[in-house]
């Protein structure tokens, strides 16, 4: 103790007019950063009140008063820095290489410097990228934590696109254009829009259920699922608005509900990537494109077009995720096929797309009940069905499935489309 009293200060600070409670604590904390544990900090203050208060401050902050003297009208207080660490963690790393900018923009895909995230600790917390986590925090138990089963190589870019392509379902759709349709066409549009909105609920609930299971150290996936959920919320919004704007109503069909129910039954992330992103949303890409091209009004066309842009990202993620996951796990592909087969078994009662919906799509595309227009629209729908089928197989092949397996999976897909 006596040797400490004689110890030369490692650092000196002049508090000038600063007081405790008025910023002196901040100056002292910064000064103590320059003193190693056991070293001495000398504080000079003209205030007797500050000098009298500093011992209590020192003790409550883990340091020790070792001297208090007068010097030419000032008070000189010496405290010895305590041994305990303020934060229970390794020191912060030295200044590192910051992420590169693209024309002044900081892209999510670039913030790891092109590196994959490390396979995270399943108990890790909400430490942001670059942060050093403090010890002693409660551990989590993330259900979805294995990087190679969850990751998609371009997820950073997809997050970037999702942010850049946000839109507003109240203002970006020319709603007034939907007001003048004849009752028959409007009723058909209302049914189609009701069907779309009903399906989009499931497209929201599936990623929403996975999000809180994801290890936050795979932050790009967290951002991605957040954007996916937000996209689907807007799809529910825009298709509901389109069904309401014409004053007509549609049915929320039980067959659609059954199909969506089986989608929610799937609890495996990659199997859901297959069933929802690749097969369901993939098939919807063709449907939305059809609606955009055959819409009887500009509002319907705009809603379908905007939703299509989002769904493309979701399909892209699904293909990318499955391609990567199956390359790391050779047993995964058969289990994905089994998941599709299990779902199909639950949907044996569905023999095709609901006749009510086929009729509504036909009337919507024909925009009348005139035989010539109806015939043309019916032909277009047959083409749509073929397009859906061939594109589905193409997407499954892009996932890495063999031609035979891709055809098998496509054949198993729900007649409800999603």
């Amino acid at each position: 103790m006596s040797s400490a009293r004689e110890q030369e200060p490692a650092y000196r600070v002049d508090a000038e007019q600063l007081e405790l409670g008025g910023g002196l604590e901040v100056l002292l904390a910064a000064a103590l950063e320059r003193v190693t544990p056991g070293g001495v900090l000398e504080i000079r203050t003209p205030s007797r009140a500050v000098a009298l208060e500093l011992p209590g401050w020192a003790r409550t902050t883990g340091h020790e008063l070792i001297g208090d003297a007068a010097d030419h009208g000032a008070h000189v207080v010496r405290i010895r820095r305590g041994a305990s660490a303020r934060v229970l963690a390794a020191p912060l790393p030295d200044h590192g290489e910051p992420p590169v900018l693209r024309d002044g923009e900081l892209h999510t895909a670039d913030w790891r410097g092109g590196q994959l995230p490390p396979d995270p600790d399943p108990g890790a917390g909400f430490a942001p990228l670059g942060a050093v986590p403090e010890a002693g925090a409660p551990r989590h138990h993330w259900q979805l934590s294995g990087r190679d089963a969850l990751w998609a190589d371009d997820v950073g870019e997809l997050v970037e696109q999702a942010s850049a392509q946000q839109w507003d379902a109240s203002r970006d759709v020319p709603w007034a254009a939907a007001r003048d349709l004849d009752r028959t066409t409007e009723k058909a549009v209302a049914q189609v829009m009701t069907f779309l909105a009903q399906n989009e609920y499931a497209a929201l609930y599936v990623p929403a259920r996975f999000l809180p299971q994801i290890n936050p150290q795979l932050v790009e996936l967290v951002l991605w699922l957040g954007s996916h959920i937000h996209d689907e919320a807007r799809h529910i919004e825009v298709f509901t608005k389109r069904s309401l704007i014409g004053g007509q109503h549609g049915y929320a069909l039980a067959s659609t509900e059954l199909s969506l129910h089986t989608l929610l039954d799937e609890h495996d992330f990659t199997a859901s990537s297959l069933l929802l992103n690749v097969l369901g949303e993939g098939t919807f890409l063709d449907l939305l494109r059809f609606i955009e091209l055959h819409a009887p009004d500009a509002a319907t066309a705009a809603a379908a077009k905007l939703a299509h842009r989002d769904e493309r990202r979701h399909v892209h993620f699904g293909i990318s995720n499955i391609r990567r996951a199956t390359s790391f796990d050779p047993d995964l592909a058969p289990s994905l096929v089994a998941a599709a087969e299990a779902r199909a078994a639950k949907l044996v009662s569905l023999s095709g797309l609901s006749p009510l919906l086929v009729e509504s799509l036909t009337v919507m595309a024909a925009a009348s009940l005139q035989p010539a227009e109806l015939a043309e629209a019916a032909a277009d729908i047959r083409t749509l069905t073929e397009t859906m089928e061939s594109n589905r197989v193409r997407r499954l092949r892009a996932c890495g499935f063999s031609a035979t397996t891709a055809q098998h999976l496509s054949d198993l897909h729900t007649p409800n489309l999603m």
Partner: protein
Amino acid sequence: MISAELRLGAVSYHPRVVTIWERFRTYFADAGVPTDYLLFSNYERLVDAVLEGTVDIGWNTNTAYVALDHRAAGGTQILGMRDVDLDWATVLVMPKGKSIDSVTELDGRVLALGSRDSGHAAILPLHYMAKEGLDAQERCRLLRFDTDLGKHGDTGDSELHVVRAVAAGEAEAGALSDVYFSAFRAEGVPEVADLQVVWRSPTYYHCNFTVLDSLDRELSERWSQALLAMEFDDPSLRSAMELEGVRRWYRGDRDGYASLTAAMREQSMLT
């Protein structure tokens, strides 16, 4: 249930006492000295319990320790205390812009004090001021805040009343512990912003773990060693130690209790 070798008594001055002792109970079990804890609503009951043998160890305030040691005729042992307990001090605070060079300047003024059973906020301020020439019990009008009697000032509640009274001008000066004043400052208690420290007492000891001489020495020594081995940088202990206000445990001794013993005699608190 862990079979406890020792029973420790503590006062439940705040719900956090349960959090602290649940963690410490596990710690002592892991350290090979299983220790259960019993909570009391006031230190007088705790002192009785130590004397009656209901508990082996009392986690005492300085006032409780002096009373216990007096009643045991000096037959007590101290097993440990916190780092902060070794250098406790009382301060007098006044509004900014007002100060004193000597406590005698408070002659005839209103002095706010904390609970009358608090060593740091009532008993020792009167003692030290008397030593510096002011018998405040006779010469000042005392504005006492006897809140939470039996807790010996542990709650900090009476000291909060003290700073509020001084800030409101109901008292010229107020006495409280330097630790509580710093804590109020750190918590941003608004009234503290307008106050400053104008006097500081000599230091004295505060709490300690006390046992009677009759307790098995080998057992009490093992308990002490386990206590002293607690590490503030152990992530599993930090939170409980922060709640207890300790960074490091010390063995401690009797030296720092002389002033309180004298003060309690002067104020007829040891009979």
